[in-house]
């Protein structure tokens, strides 16, 4: 026994560059899954807004599932389940989904996840536009496309910004769990640092600082954007 060196800020600084060297993985996961999630989420929102029978019920169950199940469980379900579900189809084309690496499944999970949250945001934003304005637009002879582009979209975009920002931030924070299925992102690299140096706390502190900085910047950015849009209202 004796004085064991538990924590030092020097090591935090020492590990920092190693963490930063994997930061791009974290950011790529976040951006890719948000882009796919926004497309998928808009589709889901369309299903809900146009009240398409059966499909609408399916989206309700889907959203409830995503909201009720912890994200790390979702990760494993997609990681194990997607190949099990789709391989019978893909194997016909000689593609074995089991051979894909964890990264693709992580992006898929976060895309499914953010799609559910963004669909709620998009639905609420479009429903938030005053109905009378649509009637007004129709009365002056706008087509449906014009109505959407000139009346609905600019206002819905404005309404959606704060909640969209929240989804972006929570997706970024959720990526910290990608390491559980073996993706070597910023958090995943900590276990290899720990295996080498027997110190993991410094790694976690470093990663937390990076996440903290990103969250603060995003939060400030989104509230600035919101304010800027308010001027034109």
């Amino acid at each position, binding site marked *: 026994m004796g004085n064991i060196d538990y924590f030092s800020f020097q090591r935090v600084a020492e590990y920092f560059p190693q963490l930063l060297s994997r930061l791009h993985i974290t950011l790529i996961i976040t951006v890719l899954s948000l882009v796919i999630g926004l497309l998928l989420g808009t589709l889901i929102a369309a299903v809900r807004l146009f009240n398409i029978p059966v499909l609408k019920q399916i989206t309700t169950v889907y959203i409830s599932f995503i909201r009720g199940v912890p994200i790390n469980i979702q990760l494993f*379900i997609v990681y194990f389940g997607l*190949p099990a579900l789709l391989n019978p189809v893909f194997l016909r084309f000689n593609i074995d989904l089991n051979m894909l690496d964890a990264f693709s499944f992580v992006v898929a999970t976060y895309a499914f996840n953010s799609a559910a949250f963004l669909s709620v945001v998009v639905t609420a934003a479009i429903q938030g536009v005053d109905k009378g304005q649509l009637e007004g637009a129709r009365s002056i002879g706008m087509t449906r496309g014009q109505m959407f582009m000139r009346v609905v979209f600019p206002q819905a975009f404005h309404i959606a910004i704060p909640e969209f920002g929240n989804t972006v931030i929570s997706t970024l924070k959720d990526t910290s769990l990608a390491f559980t299925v073996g993706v070597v992102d910023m958090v995943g690299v900590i276990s290899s640092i720990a295996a080498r140096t027997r110190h993991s706390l410094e790694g976690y502190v470093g*990663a937390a600082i990076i996440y903290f900085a990103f969250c603060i910047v995003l939060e400030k950015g989104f509230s600035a954007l919101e304010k800027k849009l308010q001027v034109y209202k």
Partner: protein
Amino acid sequence: MAILQTGLRVNLRYATGINMYKFDYSFFLHELWVAVTYIPLTLKLSMIPMVFGLVFGTLLAILRIQKVPVLNTLIKIYILIFRSMPMVLMILILYFSFMYGFDTIAELMHLKIRSGNVPPIILAYIILSIVSVAFMTESIRTALQSVQKGQVEAAHSIGMKTSAIYRRIIIPQALPVAIPILGNTFIGLTKGTALVYMIGVTDLITGVKIEANASYRYLEAYIAIAVIYWLLCIAIEQGIRLLSHRVNAVS
């Protein structure tokens, strides 16, 4: 501790020698039953931090609203840190800090006891409570501040004490606002309990996964875990809805 899961699926392929996965329904039902037996533990893991969060969150929220110098800034920093960092990192950092802190103090006092002797579940309760207080404080503050300022000023002007104002003016009006917000926080905490396996607690996830280790049937295991969490969250949501109907009817 964080366990890397790399290659689990590959193991399954070697074990079964096939690329097609056949879902084993009877094993799934077995896992579902195992998961059900862990519901009380999961509820305890979310309820105890919730209660702590309510008590201390209210206290801190009032300190924030009353703008108590120094303390106000400290609470602000505490909340900012916890809300802007991923929960996993928070849990792992707190876990290691507690373990190391415990060992250091034990060594200083020449005690035989070491951090390894502390049951992980106790640490889980403490850590989740610290996280919960941060989230609860913000939720409660939002609810308390939803009451119009003018009413508080009016109450002051007729000579009511601050404690009486809270009891008779603010809390009755803040409660209907608070319930849905607190409900969401509670659901977040319940989902957060899915992370405590990382600090060595034998919770729902570990318990269900142990059963799947022999056959590599992790998909069935994780779907069983998901179903239980899903049902728990739906039940909580319904409970909140009922409660907020009640409160709205009264006030």
